[in-house]
């Protein structure tokens, strides 16, 4: 391309460091915020004030911060559920279905212990809470195993299968919690039953223990991929399935394993949101919104390029922006879904900025003699 006396050229980048990658991501975020600023202007709100409100509520406010962190834990778990298959070159688009299954699994355990309709019953948290976590994990694993099995055995497209299972799981939840369903709450408002206080986990500054599961998983997964035999096999399979087969790695085992692990982690996300977040403690009427939110886990996973540690700040940012965005919408009386608009723009810009991972723009003055060609 020529601009005046200069030639603008794209050059392929040979390599980049982790810091350059982080810098590009930060620039992308700033650029996206700038663009959303125009939306604020168009709505008659000073963008500086809008952002100040979003960030101060999302990250600095005593009420807002715990909400942000709880949301970030959820997003982080979803991101891991995406990252594990992603490192094996497989696409898990089924976090929504897996987390619905996880929620159902956890509440099925509580139901079995007689938690339904017994708001003040004294259940033993030391037994029921671990059992609920196990229930969530097993249910998520089973749902995750289906696409893994089909992929490994028949090489079916895992994207299609996981997508379809999302719908099945969505309606299964509806069947369980709505009118006449076994998990229907007492209010009859299409919600699940509420957990008794005795098995609502303890909070620290408004944050449940699941934060340690999420952070622990980040470190564990990082270690597994970097140092272990199974992590090596997964990465090898992800980068070159033919070469992995040549080296004796079984495509069937890897496909099944990564989807089962992904399902377990997504199941835990379902447990986290519906059974531990203060003020929820039930499968809510709008559970589908959390299935939608789970898709932002994919974005976290993609932007972090499969690095579980890098997903932490991203999940926090996304959690804070959606939370703060929802807040300013009410406070500044904006007539649109600023939180989703913000996430949407951010997502597109982050993806577009991936371009700079591969190319750099070079300016060159055109030499006079070359012009006559």
């Amino acid at each position: 391309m020529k601009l005046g006396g200069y030639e603008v050229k794209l050059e392929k980048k040979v390599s980049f460091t982790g810091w350059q990658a982080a810098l590009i991501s930060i620039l992308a975020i700033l650029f996206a915020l700038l663009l959303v600023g125009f939306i604020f202007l168009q709505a008659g709100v000073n963008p500086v004030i809008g952002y100040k409100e979003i960030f101060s509520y999302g990250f600095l406010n005593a009420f807002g911060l715990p909400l942000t962190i709880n949301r970030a834990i959820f997003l982080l778990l979803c991101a891991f559920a995406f990252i594990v298959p992603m490192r094996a070159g497989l696409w898990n688009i089924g976090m929504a279905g897996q987390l619905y299954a996880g929620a159902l699994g956890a509440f099925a355990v509580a139901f079995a212990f007689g938690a339904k309709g017994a708001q003040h019953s004294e259940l033993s948290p030391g037994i029921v809470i671990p059992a609920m976590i196990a229930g969530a994990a097993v249910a998520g694993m089973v749902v995750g195993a289906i696409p893994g099995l089909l992929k490994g055995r028949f090489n079916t497209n895992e994207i299609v299968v996981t997508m379809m299972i999302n719908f099945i799981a969505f309606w299964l939840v509806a069947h369980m919690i709505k009118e006449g369903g076994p998990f229907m709450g007492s209010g009859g408002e299409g919600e699940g039953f509420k957990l008794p206080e005795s098995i609502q986990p303890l909070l620290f500054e408004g944050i449940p223990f699941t934060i340690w599961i999420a952070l622990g998983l980040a470190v564990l997964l990082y270690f597994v991929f970097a140092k272990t035999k199974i992590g090596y096999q997964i990465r090898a399979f992800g980068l070159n399935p033919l070469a992995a087969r040549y080296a004796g790695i079984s495509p069937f085992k890897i496909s099944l394993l990564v989807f089962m692990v992904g399902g377990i982690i997504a199941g835990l996300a379902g447990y986290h949101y519906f059974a531990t977040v203060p003020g929820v403690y039930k499968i809510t009427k709008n559970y589908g919104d959390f299935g939608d939110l789970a898709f932002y886990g994919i974005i976290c996973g993609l932007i972090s390029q499969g690095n579980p540690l890098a997903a932490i700040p991203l999940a926090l940012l996304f959690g804070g922006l959606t939370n703060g965005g929802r807040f300013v919408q009410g406070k500044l009386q904006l007539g649109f879904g600023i939180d989703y608009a913000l996430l949407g723009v951010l997502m597109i810009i982050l993806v577009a900025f991936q371009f700079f991972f591969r190319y750099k723009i070079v300016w060159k003055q055109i030499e006079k003699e070359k012009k006559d060609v």
Partner: protein
Amino acid sequence: MPTEIKRGDTVLVAKGITKRYPGLVANDHIDFEIKAGEIHAILGENGAGKTTLMKILFGLVQPDEGEIYVFGRKVHFRSPLDAIDLGIGMVHQNRKLIHAHSVIENIMLGHPNAGNILNLKRAAEEITELCDRYGYKLDLKAKVWHLSEGEKQVVEILKALYRGAKILILDEPTSALAPPETEKLLASIQIMTGDELAIVPFITHKLPIVLSVSHRVTVLRRGKVISRINTADATENSLAKEMVGREVIFRLERVADVEKGKPILQVENLSAFNDKGFLALKGVSFSAHEGEIFGIAGVSGNGQQVLAEVLAGLRKAAGGKVLIDGIDITNSTSLQRWQNGMGYIPSEQRAVGSIGDFSLVENMLMNYYFDAGFSKWGIMDSKKIRSLTEELISEYGVATPNPDVSAKSLSGGNLQKLILARVLSRKPRLLIVNLPTQGLDVGATEFVQNKLLEAKKARAGVLLISEDLDEIMSLSDRIAPIYEGEFMGIIPGKSAEREIVGALMAGLQQKAVEI
């Protein structure tokens, strides 16, 4: 383009062509010229800069410096289309044809006369005329996926000629061809030179071909022109010396004095399907012994790849048995075979034999991760694998700054050395090697072949699959030509005659007598 080109006219001049990539100068001020009616071979090892030069001449890559003149006019190619319009045609090593389409449709594709409505009849007449003139026999209505590699290449050549090419660039023209096909190709390009076409083949090895057909040779080494030679003054040895920069020994010492031991691999009536679901291997039986190189000679696509994959445990057998040391392993997994002394070097180094985005250390791990000594409680011993990699890199002379670079940054020869190091260091008792020197330059070829002989001396049973007759003839103790999934006989290497093996692998002769 001038209407009349006379024999001996200079048709293309390149002056000071320079192309830099980060970390290397692929072309360093290259000057050369091509005349009408000459075959001007460009010779060089892998990484000498041939490919870059070719891409520049065809407009795929723009040079950083330098000028190109075609028919006396200075040109600046923005894309291959500019080059094609000026009469430059190119036949790629990896065929760029549409497999589901017929020959004529492929030839018409992109032709300016092919408007919205194809006049196939007129085109067919014109193309048939071209075929007759250059001695090609081709069914224009055949689908491309039915064709052999040699026929596909003819399609590419016809496509370029039909488009009006006056300068034809051929990238490794003989690499995938059977000997009789090679003969035909060479005959046809010699006819073309009579029509004042300039032919520019790029060749890595197969020096005899360069000697027999070319008029002039330009030798590249590390991006520079090392010499310009009239072929009449050259010998095989002198060309090799120019290319590699040192003397190369062509005739390998046959290691015949290794005592042939007990059979290590027994194959009984083995058959298997290929990816398309056709029976590609039809009841093959043989045994390979300790201390023996068993050569399977065949043009690719005749079932040898399928055979190698079945033996390596990567493809299911449709019938028959495979025994190692007398134990039936027909149904055991690839991993079990690796652990029990099999070693496999696949033909596709980059697609199968290595993981491009992995470091050399991680690539080394591909054949070691499952060994007990390399992990403890599932955690890899990174120090151990690293020191092994460093050791093997220096032992096998893999040219690399350090073991942390990615495998995709290695040249073909170096990557093959790395794969060889990885597999041979396991001291396999049965070694399966598929096209071990394909695309390698003279120096690397020599190295790889010597390593195979060393493995034989160490009493491994070596199964060598190759389409290079010279390689098969000089290395093998016994030779089995393979054609359409069947062995055409098993011939002792000492008494094998080149012409007979060549004819057998091309299916031109009925089965030889079993000896």
